[in-house]
């Protein structure tokens, strides 16, 4: 079995320091829509300048390099135990090289482990066996400020008048976006899971964020709801950084899960504008990044 530690370190560097092209393009478009001289426009100009500087200097776009969340899709025959050890080794090295901030804190004694390791979920690694010969690793760095803006609604929700249907889902997501204000570093991207149990729904609300911003939802109903919610949330006028303005979210991504008869959850993860997600593929000795 190959040792991928070096390749994963590069994946971590790339993810932390270079924003994906679809996100940068969306931020650029958002900037052009704000009034020249407004605080919203100024914020987006600063954001784009920072994105460029981070790429040039190979320094973290945001100091909160978040929870490293890995999804590993491996052909048969790979040892997931060995892969996990390689991921952990790469995370430690990335921390030493200042691509990652030491972010893993023991909740009981408050001690920071200093190397971004800590228990089974830090870093978080999901494994899935796939057909074919190509191994794919997707990485998301999910910051804490935006994570605090995540929410889960159990429908029906009386105060919102939200029932157990897509109309109710829409109301819950609108409320979630309003509650977040600019706290999650707007303009954000909402990952939404309909259904599931509380746990599977939160995982799904992040998995859906691996989709590209311009990727249409395969389900026509959800595709329409994504577009509608994006437009309506932007009418809230919260704007970049919560300064007021036209762009509050860059997009909404929705997935649906089977649920128990008794439960109908609408679960939202808020991703900040520093939407750090990257992918590496390994086919033989060929390693590619996108």
């Amino acid at each position: 079995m190959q040792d991928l530690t070096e390749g994963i370190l590069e994946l971590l560097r790339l993810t932390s320091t270079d924003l994906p092209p679809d996100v940068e393009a969306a931020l650029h478009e958002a900037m052009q829509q704000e009034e020249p001289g407004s605080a919203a426009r100024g914020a987006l100009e600063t954001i784009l300048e920072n994105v460029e500087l981070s790429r040039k200097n190979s320094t973290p776009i945001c100091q909160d390099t978040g929870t490293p969340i890995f999804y590993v899709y491996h052909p048969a025959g790979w040892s997931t135990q060995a892969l996990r050890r390689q991921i952990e080794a790469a995370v430690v090295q990335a921390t030493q090289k200042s691509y990652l901030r030491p972010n893993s804190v023991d909740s009981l004694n408050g001690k920071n482990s200093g190397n971004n390791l800590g228990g089974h979920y830090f870093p978080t690694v999901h494994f899935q066996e796939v057909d074919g010969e190509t191994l794919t690793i997707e990485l998301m760095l999910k910051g804490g400020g935006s994570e605090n803006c995540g929410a889960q609604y159990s429908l029906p929700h009386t105060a919102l008048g939200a029932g157990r249907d897509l109309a109710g889902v829409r109301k819950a997501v609108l409320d979630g976006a309003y509650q977040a204000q600019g706290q999650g570093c707007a303009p954000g991207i909402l990952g939404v899971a309909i259904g599931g149990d509380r746990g599977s729904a939160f995982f799904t609300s992040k998995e859906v964020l691996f989709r590209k911003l311009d990727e249409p939802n395969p389900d026509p109903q959800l595709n329409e709801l994504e577009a509608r919610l994006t437009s309506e949330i932007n009418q809230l006028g919260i704007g970049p950084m919560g300064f007021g303005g036209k762009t509050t979210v860059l997009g909404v991504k929705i997935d649906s899960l089977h649920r128990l008869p008794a439960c109908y959850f609408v679960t939202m993860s808020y991703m900040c504008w520093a939407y750090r997600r990257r992918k590496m593929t390994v086919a033989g000795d060929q390693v590619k990044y996108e």
Partner: protein
Amino acid sequence: MVELSIPLSDEAIRSLKVGDTVALSGVMITGRDTVHKWMVDTFIKKTRPPQGDDLEVYNAIKPLLHSSVIYHCGPVVAGLDTRQYKFVAAGPTTSIREEPYQGAVMDHFKVKGVIGKGGMGPKTLKACQDVPGVYLHAIGGAASLIAQTVKRVLSVYKYEFGVPEAMWVIEVKDFPAVVTMDAHGHSLHAEVEAHSKAVLQDLLTRPLESIPK
């Protein structure tokens, strides 16, 4: 663009209004969740007796904080092994988590500026009127850019809180921020929230027309 130098005078603070962009220069201290809780528990509410180097640190930071600025920031710092510290990435963290503490800390230490992101609530707004002080909003996530305005790391206190939570004493030049809460009781965050709430109420009354139930 208003150029501000630390230490900040009351006059300079009172002249600032919501919406002003500022470039801040001088010596400030980073402090976030653990620091604010530690300050309030140990020195303000005194629910926990000082331990270890607590008093020594208190005496060192007191003059540094007077008429100065607390920056809600957990930086990425290079040179940890050699102690030749350099800020690599240093954007603001979300400020609202310090709302239970901030007003008391501003009042106790006479802190005249708080830098963070996302804004703060009524207790901090009142402290801004009383001390007087301002809340300065930095651009969240603009970490590489802001790190370039940090010219020197002068010292670090409470390193054992961890790199993101320690108090880093830094010298900045032309640190960019926007005044979003001023000493006259105005808050951009309260305005934006009120506006968005009215829009939300209206949207919630609209049917889902085209999408089948």
